[in-house]
C-alpha cells in the first residue's frame, strides 16, 4: 500500500528500517534470551536522531509528531519490539511534559529526551490500580515549597534505566479521579528507588520494574499543569501514544508475515513449496490483509493525533485495539505456517507471538479500549440528538 509519505518521513522510515535490519535483528534473539536492556541500540537510535523525530524544533527536535514516531516504532518492531517499546516508552514519559509542562519544564527536560541522552518513563499503574486508574494509592502531600510522594508504581516500562519519570499521585483523595496530579521525578532524587526487573512473557529486552517512592521530596515546580489534572494528563497522553502501540503491533505482525512468506516459499513438502498449497496461501493472504488494514487505521489515527483536531480518544483507541488484535492473530498464524520450526527459538516467530500479547494489554487493555470507543459513540449520538 502507498501512504504517500513526505520525503522526510520516507527518510525516517528508511533509517529506522536500516537500523532495525543491521543492528537490531542480529541481536534480537540474544536480547530476548538474556533479558538485557538494549543500551547499545538506544545509543545508536540517539545518534541517528530518532528520539528527535516527534519533538518540536524549539526543544531540539525535528518537529514531527505521533506519525513520525509511529514510523520508527513500526520499523523497530519488525526486528524486536522489546527494543521498540524501550524507545517508545521514552515518548510515553515525555508526552505529559510536552502537553502540560510549563515552558521552563519543557526547556529543562525535552532537549535531553530529544537527544536520547536521557530516557523518560511514565508511572501510573499500581498493584491495585490497573484499568481502574482512579484507584491509585500513591500520594503526594504538599509540604511548604515541596511535595512529598509515597507509594509504589508497578510494571513501569524503562523504570530503573530512565532518568525522567512522570508520576501520577493522589493530591486530594476526596475528589476521586479529579484528585490526582502529575509530577516530574528525576532519578537520583532521595526516596526514589526501583524494584527488581520483572520476568516477562515477551518484550524481554525492555525493562519493567516497580517505581518505589518513600518520602520522596520534590520541589513544587515539578508539578505538571495544576493539581487535580493527573487523570486528564494520563488520558490525553494515551491519546497521543496509543497509535504508537498500534504501530508496534503492526510492526510485529509485518515482521512475522515476512518470515512466514519467505518460509512458505522455501519449505518443501510433498515435493512442492508449501506456498503452493491453498491452505497456506489463504492464511498468508488473510495475515497480509489484516496487517495492512491495521496499518491504515494506525496511520490515520496518528495523523489525527498530529492534526490538532479536538477529541481523538476514539480513533486512538480503535487503532490500538484493532492493530493489537490483528498482531496477536497474525503472529499465532505465522507460527502455524512455520509448523514445528515456528515453535522453536531458532526461528523468530515464537518470540513475535510472545511479544504480541502485551500489545492487547498495556496502555489500556483492549476491553478498556472498547469501553472508550463505546462511550465516545454514545456521547456523539447524544450530542447529535441534542441539536
Amino acid at each position, binding site marked *: 500500500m502507498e501512504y504517500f509519505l513526505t520525503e522526510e518521513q520516507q*527518510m*525516517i522510515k528508511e533509517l529506522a528500517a536500516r537500523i532495525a535490519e*543491521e543492528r537490531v535483528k542480529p541481536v534480537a534473539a540474544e536480547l530476548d534470551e538474556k533479558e538485557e536492556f538494549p543500551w547499545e541500540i538506544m545509543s545508536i537510535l540517539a*545518534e*541517528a*536522531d530518532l528520539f*528527535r523525530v516527534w519533538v518540536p524544533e524549539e526543544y531540539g527536535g*525535528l518537529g514531527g509528531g505521533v506519525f513520525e514516531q509511529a514510523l520508527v516504532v513500526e520499523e523497530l518492531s519488525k526486528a524486536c519490539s522489546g527494543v521498540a517499546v524501550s524507545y517508545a516508552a521514552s515518548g510515553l514519559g515525555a508526552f505529559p511534559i510536552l502537553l502540560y509542562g510549563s515552558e521552563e519544564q519543557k526547556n529543562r527536560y525535552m532537549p535531553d529526551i530529544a537527544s536520547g541522552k536521557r530516557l523518560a518513563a511514565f508511572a501510573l499503574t499500581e498493584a491495585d490500580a490497573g484499568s481502574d486508574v482512579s484507584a491509585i494509592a500513591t500520594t503526594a502531600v504538599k509540604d511548604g515549597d515541596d511535595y512529598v510522594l509515597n507509594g509504589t508504581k508497578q510494571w513501569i516500562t524503562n523504570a530503573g534505566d530512565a532518568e525522567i519519570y512522570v508520576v501520577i499521585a493522589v493530591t486530594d483523595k476526596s475528589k476521586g479521579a479529579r484528585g490526582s496530579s502529575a509530577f516530574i521525578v528525576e532519578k537520583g532524587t532521595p526516596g526514589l528507588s526501583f524494584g527488581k526487573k520483572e520476568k516477562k512473557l515477551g518484550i524481554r529486552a525492555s525493562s519493567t520494574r516497580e517505581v518505589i517512592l518513600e518520602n520522596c521530596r520534590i520541589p513544587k515546580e515539578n508539578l505538571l499543569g495544576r493539581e487535580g489534572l493527573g487523570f486528564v494528563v494520563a488520558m490525553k497522553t494515551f491519546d497521543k501514544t496509543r497509535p504508537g502501540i498500534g504501530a508496534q503491533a503492526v510492526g510485529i505482525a509485518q515482521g512475522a508475515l515476512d518470515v512466514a512468506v519467505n518460509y512458505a516459499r522455501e519449505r518443501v513438502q510433498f515435493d512442492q513449496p508449501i506456498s503452493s498449497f491453498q491452505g497456506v496461501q489463504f492464511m498468508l493472504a488473510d495475515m497480509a490483509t489484516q496487517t495492512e488494514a491495521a496499518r491504515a487505521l494506525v496511520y490515520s489515527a496518528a495523523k489525527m493525533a498530529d492534526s490538532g483536531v479536538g477529541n481523538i480518544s476514539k480513533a486512538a483507541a480503535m487503532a490500538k485495539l484493532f492493530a493489537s488484535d490483528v498482531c496477536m492473530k497474525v503472529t499465532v498464524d505465522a507460527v502455524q505456517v512455520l509448523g514445528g520450526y515456528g515453535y522453536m527459538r531458532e526461528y523468530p516467530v515464537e518470540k513475535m507471538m510472545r511479544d504480541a500479547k502485551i500489545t492487547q494489554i498495556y496502555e489500556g487493555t483492549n476491553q478498556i479500549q472498547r469501553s472508550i470507543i463505546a462511550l465516545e459513540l454514545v456521547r456523539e449520538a447524544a450530542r447529535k440528538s441534542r441539536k
Partner: protein
Amino acid sequence: MHIVVCIKQVPDPSQARIDRETGLVIREGVDKIINPYDLYALEESLRLKEAHDGQVTALSMGPPSAEDVLKDAVAMGVDHGVLLSGRDFAGADTLATSYALALAVQKLESVDLIICGKQAADGDTAQVGPGLAANLDRPHVTEVRKIRHIEEDKMVVERLTDTGYEVIRLSLPAVITVVKEINEPRIPGLRGMMRAKKAQIPAWDAEYIGADPQRLGLKGSPTRVWRTFEPTRHGQGEMLRGTAGEQAVLLWEKLRGRL
C-alpha cells in the same frame, strides 16, 4: 587537524554481474554506492575529528553522479566534500587517479592526514593510496587496523599482516589506508542527512587543480586491459554427511582412493 578522506563511487558489489561477451562489469541498472572500504576511512576520520577537534574533507574523483557519495559523507559528519569531475579525468587508471587526487589535496589547506579505504570494490587494485603518497612525497602505511596514537607531527599505527600486525611510527602529513577491522562505521543521523541534502559540493576541473592534461584520464593511463574473463571453476566441493566419526571414515576412504 585537517584530515582528507578519499572516497569512490562504485557499483554495488552485492548486485555485481559480469557481461560474459565483453568481460566487463555491467553498470546499467546497478545501484551506485560508496565503496564499502571507504566507510571505514570516513569513520576513522570522524573519530579523529571528534577526539582532536579537527575538520574532515571528503574527496572523490568521478562523474557528476559521484556527488551522491560525497553527500553520504557529509551525512555521516564530514565538513566538506570536493568532487573532481570533468572529461579530462575520464578513463583514468590508478596512476592518473593518484596524480589528480594529489593535486587536489595540494589545493586544500594544511592537510595533516589522508585516509583511504584499503582498496575499491570494483577495481580491487589497492594502488591509489600508495600512489597518492608517492605523488605527494609523503610516507604511507597500508592496511592500518588501528591508530594507536596521533599528535601534531607524528602517529603510531598498527598494520595488519598475514600473521599478525606491525607497529609503525610515521611522520605527518602522511597517507594511510585502512582495513575493516579498524572500526564499525556509523549510520548517519537524520540531521546529518538533512544537512547533506542542502550541502553544496564544489566540482573542481583539471584546470582548477593545475593538472597537466597529458597525465590525466585515458591519456595519462599506461594501464591497458588485455582481456577480462570470468575464471572457469574446476572441480566441485562435496559435503560429507553423518557423525564426525562417519565423516572421518568417508574422508579416509576418499583420500585412500586418490593415493
